[in-house]
């Protein structure tokens, strides 16, 4: 069979690690044909070169935790799995930098790094994720307030272009301004420009002591104001989270302090003053605190990431409450009030129109920011544009044309149908 010929061609490039796709291998409902797992950038290059020759559409895949994010691709002939590229290539503790392959999970990395009292300071909204996937979808959690997002941690990248060309940008040092920062461009590109094979990331020392504080407010607006105070304070919190559960009138504010034991004692007292107006303030089990960053979206829920300038957090809270009462859709809101990035989970799969209206309202509330539908059931997707308005779209199309002139990489998954 000629189809078998394709598989053979693909398999030949990756030491046999290619197979026909199974029913579980779809991308947001779009079936794939083949799955191949290169073990190195060289194999990936050969694989993608072959795929280019065959004109296959390609979707990169890590552990698949966010494969459903973004718009469904128009086609996904070949899934390129990074599972065999999962090594930590280099780690010199004194330099606070490590080189890691894209398929390594952040859990595995941090387990190794912890032996040196270091960490890759990225939260995992979707546990078990790879570093490559986390970068490609630019995921972040509570500690982004202090440490930033993947964008701030990645120092260098080795990628394979859609035509199979291997390219490296950045370097293995913290400070470098030679050449264009391609790592930034690939971060959050959802695999539409090429395959990330290897990353250089900066590390941080593990804090010696940490403390999560929780304050419960009976109304959401007071909570938002308290969060804003904490974020604008000199406490240097590592996280200022806000959580408003389904149908609640009030909200929780969580503050993470990291540092030394003595330092945190003093800072927590100051934090309690800043959190004034709370009905109840307490410190919580750090492990519970850390779990705050895990997204609480079921497979049929709609997950919206809303980014706003800090004073806009209150408006988003208000919008969520209004949507609940107006459209009757249960909404869960959680996110970094300190950074202005919130996740709203709309739990109403049987009411796609109401969900769509909620998304529209959130988008309207996100003045100066954005509201992106990360995940949604198909009926919702047909009603809303997942990405919303995007600045610089014309230039983005030109970038896509340069990197992937045939539009074979995750076509249609990204903004503006890119």
């Amino acid at each position: 069979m000629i189809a078998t010929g394709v598989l053979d061609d693909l398999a030949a490039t990756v030491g046999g690690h290619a197979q026909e796709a199974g029913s579980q291998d779809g991308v947001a409902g779009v079936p794939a044909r083949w799955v191949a797992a290169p073990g190195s950038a060289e194999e990936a290059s050969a694989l993608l070169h072959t795929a280019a020759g065959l004109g296959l559409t390609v979707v990169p895949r890590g552990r698949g935790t966010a494969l459903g994010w973004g718009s469904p691709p128009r086609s996904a002939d070949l899934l390129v799995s990074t599972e065999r590229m999962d090594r930590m290539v280099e780690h010199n503790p004194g330099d606070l930098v490590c080189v890691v392959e894209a398929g390594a999970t952040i859990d595995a990395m941090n387990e190794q790094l912890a032996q040196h009292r270091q960490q890759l300071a990225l939260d995992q909204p979707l546990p078990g994720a790879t570093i490559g996937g986390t970068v490609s979808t630019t995921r972040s959690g509570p500690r982004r307030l202090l440490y930033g997002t993947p964008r701030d941690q990645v120092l260098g990248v080795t990628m394979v272009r859609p035509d199979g060309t291997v390219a490296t940008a950045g370097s293995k040092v913290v400070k470098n301004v030679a050449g264009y920062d391609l790592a930034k461009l690939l971060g959050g590109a959802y695999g539409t420009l090429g395959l990330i094979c290897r990353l250089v990331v900066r590390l941080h020392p593990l804090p010696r002591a940490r403390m999560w504080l929780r304050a419960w407010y009976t109304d959401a607006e007071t909570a938002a104001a308290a969060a804003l105070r904490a974020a604008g304070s000199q406490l240097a919190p590592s996280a200022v989270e806000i959580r408003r559960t389904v149908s609640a009138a009030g909200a929780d504010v969580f503050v993470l302090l990291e540092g030394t034991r003595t330092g945190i004692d003093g800072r927590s007292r100051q934090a309690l003053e800043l959190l004034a107006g709370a009905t109840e303030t307490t410190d919580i089990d750090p492990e519970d605190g850390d779990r705050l960053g895990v997204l609480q979206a079921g497979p049929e829920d709609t997950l919206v990431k809303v980014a706003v300038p800090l004073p806009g957090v209150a408006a988003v809270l208000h919008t969520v409450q209004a949507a609940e009462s107006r459209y009757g859709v249960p909404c869960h809101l959680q996110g970094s009030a300190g950074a202005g990035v919130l996740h709203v989970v709309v739990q109403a799969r049987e009411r796609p129109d109401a969900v769509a209206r909620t998304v529209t309202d959130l988008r309207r509330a996100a003045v100066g920011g954005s509201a992106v539908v990360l995940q949604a059931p198909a009926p919702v997707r047909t009603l809303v544009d997942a990405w919303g308005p995007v600045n610089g779209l014309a230039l983005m199309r030109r970038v896509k044309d340069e990197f992937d002139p045939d539009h074979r990489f995750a076509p249609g998954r990204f903004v503006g149908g890119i």
Partner: protein
Amino acid sequence: MTTHPTGPVPAEVTGHDTAGSVQELARRCRALLGDEAVITDEARRRTYECDGLAAYTVVPALVVLAADTNIVREVVAHCHELGVPFVARGSGTGLSGGALPHAEGVLIVTSRMREILDVDPRAQRAVVQPGVINLDVTAAAAPHGYYYAPDPSSQQICSIGGNVAENSGGAHCLKYGFTTNHVLSVQMVAPDGALTRLGTTAPDAPGYDLLGAVVGSEGTLGIVTEATVRLTRAPEAVVTLLAGFRSTDDAGTAVSAIIGAGVVPAAIEMMDRLSIEAAEKAVACGYPAGAGAVLVVELDGPAAEVETQVGEVREHCDAAGAFEIRQAVDDAQRALIWKGRKSAFAAVGRISPDYIVQDGVIPRTALPEVLRRIDALARDNGVRVANVFHAGDGNLHPLVLFDGSEEGATERAEDVSGQILRLCLEHGGSITGEHGVGADKAAYMPQMFSDDDLDTMQLVRCAFDPRYLSNPGKVFPTPRLCGERPGRRSGTHPLQDAGVAEIF
């Protein structure tokens, strides 16, 4: 060095003869701006022939002093139409010739676009024009308890537009990151004259992170006409320590111990004997007498944490053999400590008739080894090298001192300077940590990157500037011919050719 790397753009790249078009451009600019802001007079144009790197000079064919975004947009649109190259320039303080003019192009100067449009402490943002001086952003934010974190040594004179172009860092980027970590959104004029906004006032704007590509692209992707920058809350406590050591080895040991202990200072700067001598002559900073090296360590954050860290840092410095540790207790003392460091480059002019400022990066742990090798290089070539560097992140600024009037001295100095860069690359570092590639280091790019790497970067260039008009000749040693699409296929789908399509 009468030759320079940015000669006329080859006609095959621009597809245009630029020389004749400049006259027309000048005419249009005059109509747009009046005579005063369009400089054609030879003597005046010549004052723009270089930026902070005086080794390369090119007299621009035309200089335009832009007053606002619209003027930049119109001038660039005319350039696009007439095929005239343009180079943007802010304060002209860059150290890699990034704003070196083009002999047949126009220099678009943004130093008059210096309005701070908005300061919003609640949103922790400021909106500024590109000509605004870095330190003025901090001055505007300070009354609200905020500051603008990126602090290049030239912060009192360099412009935000230039900072964005070069992705400027500074002493405090060890803890706080570079310009790219502090710019949320820009309004820019793309090389075809289209006014575009990249990013949003909020973080995580959807779409490609074009902003991330533009910051640090050294003016090759267009001209930024407005930037929304992040303001950082002023720390509760700041302590600056100045520690004197017998040698750079001792000081290096202290740095390793501090980092190894998990302390992240806001800055750790090292200066060696020669650079201390120069700074002392220039600004009488009163560093510890007889020091072979000094460390400037700044710790900031909540008072309760800083206090603990100061104790630890002092212990590590003591253990590494510091013979004197001073702690700045007020802003005036802190300013004096920093003054020595921040004036160090220009100050070596006091101890040497000529010098080359180098900028390279190595993994921090390679510091002792690389310093020894630089020492040996200097000895073997009969030049002196003063070292100033951001010790926390391995960013070296060796200053190669020489006397240009001495036979062959210039060549030897340039050779040593180049070998230092190779040393950085040998250790897995970079040819520039903050000064940029510009005109100066384009030739070194192939030593750090493969042809494929450079080709891939230039895909971005082709997307933004297919006609190669925006600051041509900088960053990349050879232009990529845009529109060349290797692997691009048209016609029947390859799967169809292979027969696969029929089967399914």
